[in-house]
Structure formats: C-alpha cells, structure tokens
C-alpha cells in the first residue's frame, strides 16, 4: 500500500492491521516515534494524521489511507526546528527524552486549536501524555513560550 509521511509517498508491503508505529519505525526507519505502552495510554507514539494527534501504536496502517502522516522528523520546515521544539530547547524540557517526541506532537496540535491556551486547556490536552521523569512543569512552561513565539510570528505575517 501507499502511505504519505512527512510529505513523501512510500510503498510499504505490510498487512493492513499492522500498527502505524511499527511501519514508521521498522519499514521507514523513522525511530523518533516511540513505543511505550502498545495500547494508546501513554502518548509516546503520538503522530499527526491530517493534522490531528493520533496514537500510532493503536492505529492500523490500513486505516491511514491517503491522509498525510507527520512525525517528529517532519515537524520542522526546511531543517529548522518547529517553534514548539525550539521552546522545548529553551526550557531544558527533556530529561531521558523518550516521551518527548509524543509530547511535542501533542502540544503542536493543542496550539493549532488553541493558540493561547489556559492552564486548564494545557492540562486537558496534555494529561494523557505520560512522562516518567516528571517534566510536566517544564512542558507547561514551554507550551506557553511556544504560544508567545507563534503569536509573534503570526503578527509579523499579518503586518507584512
């Protein structure tokens, strides 16, 4: 079947019911998306499917169809980091780092839906993305930082 990931189309030879996670990791060599629980309860495998945050460990590749998949590897444009990744760097967010791809993918969709999220909105959007190292306070701060950066970028675009 054909699958579109990070703007490129790939031909993969796997049964329909294989979770997208393993297709990304093993067939396409994109290992930034992580295996944590295998049943959509931790968020480490979060990717975007047509812009929506989805748990790839429980998403059959056959259900992707012609929708566009974005992974952590394809989040930034032209090799630059996305504003959310940049905010993660500024805030020294990662510890072990294993869950952070999923956290970042989840946060990007939050900010698309809510460009200036409240604490409650951040909690609601992020509380199903687990981090055993306890980086939550930094994730919260980084999301707010990214929101500020993105707002400035939007303003600049509006002005020009």
């Amino acid at each position, binding site marked *: 079947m054909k699958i579109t990931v990070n703007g490129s189309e790939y031909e993969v030879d796997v049964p329909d019911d294989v979770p997208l996670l393993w297709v990304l990791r093993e067939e396409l060599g994109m290992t930034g998306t992580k295996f944590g629980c295998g049943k959509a309860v931790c968020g480490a495998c979060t990717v975007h499917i047509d812009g929506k945050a989805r748990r790839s460990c429980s998403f059959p590749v056959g259900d992707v169809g012609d929708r566009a998949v974005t992974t*952590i590897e394809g989040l930034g444009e032209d090799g630059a980091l996305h504003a959310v990744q940049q905010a993660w760097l500024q805030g*020294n967010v990662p510890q072990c780092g294993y869950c952070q791809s999923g956290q970042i993918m989840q946060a990007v969709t939050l900010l698309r839906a809510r460009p200036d999220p409240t604490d409650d909105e951040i909690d609601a959007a992020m509380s199903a993305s687990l981090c055993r190292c306890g980086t939550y306070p930094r994730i919260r701060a980084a999301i707010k930082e990214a929101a500020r950066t993105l707002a400035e970028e939007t303003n600049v675009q509006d002005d020009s």
Partner: protein
Amino acid sequence: MTMNRRDFLKVSALAGGGLLMGVSFAGCSGAQRRIQQNFEATGAFRPNMYLTIRRDDKILVDVEKSEMGQGIWTSHAMLVAEELGVDMDQIETSSADAARKYQTSFGLQQTGGSTSAAESFLPVRKAAATAREMLIAAAAAEWKVDARECSVEKGVVHHQPSDRTLRYGELAEAAVYVEIPDDPPLKDIEDFEVIGTASRRIDAREKVDGSAVFGIDVEVPDKVCALCIHPPIMGAEANSVDAEKARQMTGIIDVVSLPCGVAVVAEKYWQARRAAPSVNIEWSEPPLAELSSEQVRKVAATTARKEGRKQLDDGDVGIIDDRDNLTVVEAEYASPYLAHAPMEPQNCTVHVRENAVEVWAPTQSPTVVQEAIARFTGMARGDVTVHVTLLGGGFGRRLVPDFTVEAAMISDAVGRPVQLIWSREDDTRCGYYRPINHNALRGAVDDDGNAVAWRYHNVSQTILPDVAPTLAAIFPEWFPMAARRIKSETMHGLVHSGSLPEILAMEGAKPPYKIDNLRLEYTPIRTPMPVCLWRAVGHSFNGFVVESFVDELAHAAGADPYLFRRQMLDDEPELLEVLDRAAEAADWGEPLPDGVGRGIAVHESFDTPVAQVIEASLENGEIRMHRIVCVVNCGIALNPDIVRAQMEGGIIFGLSAALRQEITFTDGRVEQGNFDDYPMMTMIDTPPIEVHIIDSTDEPTGVGEPGLPPAAPALANAIYDASGVRLRDMPFEKNLAKLRSRD
C-alpha cells in the same frame, strides 16, 4: 547501622581486591605510548579516557556514566569546558563502552545511588586540566616561550607577550609528544565560569528532533527482532510449546524455548508481535504460585507488631511504657511493591559470536552486563563488548541484567544479532520491584512537648539476596569466574544469615532529630518475588515513615510541625538550613484558603538534605495539590537548572507512588500490566513546583534521588493539616477510598 550503603560497597569492592579510582593520568611510559599510537590511528589527541581533541577543534567527551535523564552528559561536558577553556558548543558527548578503566564506581562501571556528579567532579576536571597543560606546553614549545606566559581561552592557547594564538586543533599533533603532567592545577571553585551556570542540556537537541538513539532504536546489520512470551507466573517454565502456526507466519525465523520464557524471533518486531498470540504454551507451576501479595502484607503487619532485630538502641525506649506523664503515640505505615515503569520498555540488542559477544544496551551497569553475559556464554568478561545507548529512564531497574541475558540466549540460539524488546506488560510483570514494607512505630512526647522516645520496627522484603548475583561483577576479572561466583554467593549467604546489616532497607530509617531514647529494629521478609533497587529505595519508604511519624508526634505535643522539627535539629545544621528556607519560601504560618493544608518534611539521602512544603486539599474526596516548595543543598550545583529538573522529577516520581502506584499479585500472578492499571502522575495532577538551591562551594552531592523521599510525607502531612485524615498506607488514593468505605 554504622555502615551506610557507600561504605558497604567500598568494603565489598576492597574485599574483592577491587581498586578505587586513582585520578592521576600521569605516569607510565605506557600511557604516553598509547596517546601516540592513538594519534597514529585516528589523527586525534586523546590524552586520557575522558576526552579526545580533534584537529578540527571538536572536543569529544566519553561519558562513562549512563545518561538516563539526569543530565550527566551535560555536566561532564561542563566540567571539561571549565578546565579546558572551551565553549560548550565545541563539545560532543557520547556514551563510553564498557571498559575496566571506567570501573570507578566501587569497582563497577555503573550509574546509580546518585553518585555520578560526586564521582566525576574531580577525575573529569583533572582529565581536562591534563589536556590543557599538554596543549599549553605544545604551544610554548612551538613558540619557544615560557609556558607560564601562556593561557587558554575559548579553544586557543594564547601567548600574551607576543599576542600569538594557536587553536587546540592545530596543537593536537604536537601535544601528543608532550610529557603527561603529574598534577595539573585545577581551577578554584570561586573562579568557575561554566560550572554553576544553567547551561542548556547538551542532549536536548537530539531529544526534541527525534534523532536520539535509545536502546530500542539501535540498528545493526543483519539484525533480527524478538519478543519473549514470559510465563504468567514468574519462575514458571514451558512444559510444552505449540508454535506450528506461528512458524508459518510472515517473517518468523524461529520460536525458541528459554529458561525464562518462549522467544518469537522474526525479521521485524511487528511480525513477532503478530505471531505471538498463535503460540500455545503450557506452563509449569512455580513456587510463586503459592503466594499472594495480600499474604505478604498480612505477615509483614503481624511481624511488625513484634520485636525485630535491633539495629540501633540508644537510651531506653522502655520509658514509653514505664514513665508517667508521657503522651504515647502509636502508628503503623505500609507501602507496597512498586515497578519502575520507565517509558522505554526493557530491550537489548546482542550478537553472540563464537568467541565474542557484542551488546548494545540501555543499561545502568555495563560491568554487570559483561559479567552476566560472560557467565551465560562461558567467555571472559573482556570478550563481552558493551555499547551503552541512551536510556529511556532507569530508576534502578536497568541495574539488573536479566533482559540482556535473555537477548544473549536468543542470539545464541539463532546465530544472528537479536534485538529483544519487552512489551509494556513484560516490563510491569517481570519483576524486580521496590520491596513491600510494613512499619510499626511507637513514640512519646513529654509534658513540655519534647519528643523523648522513638521506636521503629521496619519489616520489609530484603533486597540484597536478589541483587547478590550481580555482586559477582564487583570482583576483578583476574579472579577466576568460579571464584567470583563463590564470593558473591558467600555475600549472598551473609545477607541471608543476617550477618550483614540490611543497609538498603534501613537507609534513611534513623530520624535526624535529637531524641534520647531511640531504637531501630528490622525484620527481613523473604519471598520468591524478585526485588531490587528503585529510585531512593530505602529512603523512599523510611523517609515517608520518619517524616510522617514526627508530624504525628508534633500534633500530639500540640506543636507546630515545623517548629517541632526545628527544635530537635541543633546537631544537624544542614538539615535545619533547608528546613528553615523551605518554611520561609513556602510562607509557613500564613493563612491558606479554607480546606487547604500545608505539610512539611525534611530528609537527607545520598549526602543531600532536601526539605519540602506541599499545599494540598481534599476536593470531593480527591487529593488535590496546589503548590510545592523544595529546598536542596547539593554542594555546588554543577548546573542549577538540571538540579531543579532532578528535584521536580524526584518529587513527581515520589508522588506517583504516594498517590496511586502499587504492584499486587494473586497466586503469583502480577495484577498490573500497563500504564492504565499502574498509573503515574500526569500534568493535571502536577502543581507548580518551586525549587531553591542553597548556595554552596562544597563538592557536589547526589541529586537524582534526594528529591523523592520528602514528597510523600509532605503530602500526607498536608492532607492531615487540611482535613484531619492521616494517610499511613501508600498508595493514598486507595487508602482514602478504604477510609471512606469505613465511614
């Protein structure tokens, strides 16, 4: 009780003839020759085992500690940047392979016990200072000037009188032939420019763009993938295996029976996962099938009410019953088995060849992995190469080499490099838990409100017997393997017979307070359920017990819990300082909204005192936290932002256990399997956390674990302050539900 964990490990290492770390890189012509040979082979200047200077000016730092989130890559780089005089962005770090020269942690190459910063502070700086002096000498020789007229800055040697400079890269070749200095001067702590700054984590970039390589991401030519179907009860063996259908499935290479389960090997991991449900296995009934955690809990509780083995007996605790006019307080606390649940499930890639083994592992102890796989293959430890990957969390679980040996067995069976990945359920159910505990306390306060007696009986599953097999790795390699094994079994026996103090179960059990009549007792529980170290292990439950019970005494005395502690800490100025600072920062004594309470706790672990104040309430019967203040004294904070991160992480880890984590088993079957039934703190549970670091120029002490122990008691004390409900059983959410059903 006179021996702490560190002393014990030191004695163990010395008993086995292990060498403690020497920090001189000078010396023998051998070292000089190696530097030259290395240059001939690589074209780079590698003055010692910690760093390499390339001709393109890149500084490569080999980190012998495992990076599992604690920031050791960054702090090693900072130590090097400081003494070598380079910018952080000139440095690249990587994990060092297992090697004898890195066995600097009590005879092991190991990361645990919050020792990384303390153990590296001197050697890594000395390594960089050695390189610096050699580069200066090379430049001085080139310029034919006095080396004392030269200094370093931003990766160059500068000769001030003539204002000439040479980059380190340009000096790399000449430096190779400079004599290694015996005692290079180190910077004074007061002159530090890099250490003590909140430098960006050196591993942050690869961890936000997805390129970081964890164990699960290892790619090796010709690699195959495996999972292991583990028995429903630990210790069971496969009596019969029907894998005919599975073998027909796409990509399946083999289905292999192992002592620990049945491995399904495939070209791709997804293929192994698809085939696994088609394997039918009949399992034997192991001894653990007779056991349930509820029985263990009950036995522990009954035992705790009796007298235990005396570990410390000062004064006369008999006064609790004999003296009049005392207010006697009795309480029992309990905490369950706990899994580590790192986000990256256990995994390992191994290639067993005829005469050598190559391992890629997210491990906290490469030496133990070498020892364990050498034992399995019958090879020498040196024949086992271990490449350490990034670790997706460790927390003590990755000190146990079980999963690496399992991977070696599968590779041995199929003759190819094998990547074994455990499922989340395997990770939760395959053992090595934080031990279960039951703790009985009696104490007394006199009419003046002073605590005069304290008696503590800790009953917990003893850890040392389960980790004893890994102790074989402490003994040096020139000990024959059989002798190493016998020695470790001797230690095992000593532990079993009670001849060695159970330092892990009793660490942090002695209250820091001045109480004249003090007795500590311990009784080990032994069960077939395997246990091991866990973030702050003994401190994780003893800190809870001690800091909850002192709070109960304070309330019995009608005293303010902060002032009550404070008046008993005259002999512990460092604890007093963090306690005072925490109370001040948390506005102790200021009014709070209705229904909100404050709890305080102070505990020293791994040479680091930490105090915390938590504000919490019960809302519709649910625990809700509003604010956490933490004060830590870890000596000089190598990177204050990483220290803060470790405190935040330790607190949240401790609160996950305090609130809702528990491993239980019925008839030997572990009842939890994934994050839905072994839940942790989430963002919504996490209140703002403020961390304050005491200014210090003392040598650094641990930060990975010390943030954890005060968190649970501070929360329990806050809930008592808020509601009058005293939470003595972890996990608290279950404790609360039980209390409610009793009402």
